[in-house]
């Protein structure tokens, strides 16, 4: 059975997360071998995930950690008294 592009897109996420079953996985891979468009969609999605996992993309406010521990310290002291 030949997969349509639309069907592949529906399972892109599952394919990346490796939650699609073996048979579907094989069909998708076969499709990707000859379909430039779906390969590009897959690459683009993966690139987004790489960027997302890059700590520089979503940064913490400067001084966040220091302020957090200072606030915690106040709480810890307060409790002890």
């Amino acid at each position, binding site marked *: 059975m030949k997969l349509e592009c639309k069907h592949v897109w529906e399972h*892109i996420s599952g394919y990346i997360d490796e939650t699609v079953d073996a048979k579907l996985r094989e069909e998708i891979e076969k499709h990707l071998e000859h379909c430039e468009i779906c390969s590009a*969609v897959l690459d683009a999605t*993966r690139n987004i995930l790489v*960027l997302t996992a890059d700590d520089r993309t*979503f940064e913490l406010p400067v001084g*966040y950690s220091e302020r957090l521990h200072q606030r*915690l310290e106040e709480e810890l002291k307060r409790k002890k008294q």
Partner: protein
Amino acid sequence: METRGTTEAGLIARILAGETELFHELIRPYERMVYMTVFSVVKNEAEAEDGAQEAMINAYRHLASFRGDAKFSTWLVTIAINEGRKRLRKAKSAPEESIDEPTEGQEGEFTPALLTDWREIPLEALERKELREALRMAVAGLPDIYRQVFTLRDLEELNVEETAQALGIQAGAVKVRLHRARMMLQKRLVPLLKTTAPSRGRWFGRAL
């Protein structure tokens, strides 16, 4: 993982036994996670920072109720989600979900951006600052339910079960929302990349 679990359980026991100073050490690996989680709900830096502090204090106050049947990280994220939601409710008495919230249910047909160009993006391009900025904007622009799932799964790397538990939704909903979030982001970002990608360089392709 096992070592960390043991260490963590040990730390928790010691904190509960009175060595409260160790709480600083206990939460250090999760500072980023808690902030990003609250931010995914409140979408405001100052509010997220304050909420993250509050969530950590709540975790400290209720540490004795942590049973260890869930992972400590999941427990913390759940507290962070609740703190964010509490703040959101306070901020607006209006309905929580925005009106442009897409309805769930049937498998929505999300057509991805059909551009083959992006597979030819060199690694250097992913290093660009504008690209990270564009992704931040695109994530901020996602409908709430999608942004929250995306943050927990792809930014904080929680698994499906942990994400479902933290958000109080079914595992199936996590998968559907994550898929839609990724497709929406892909659609938003591909055109931006198309105009800036140089035609030569090291390819960042399928080998990932």
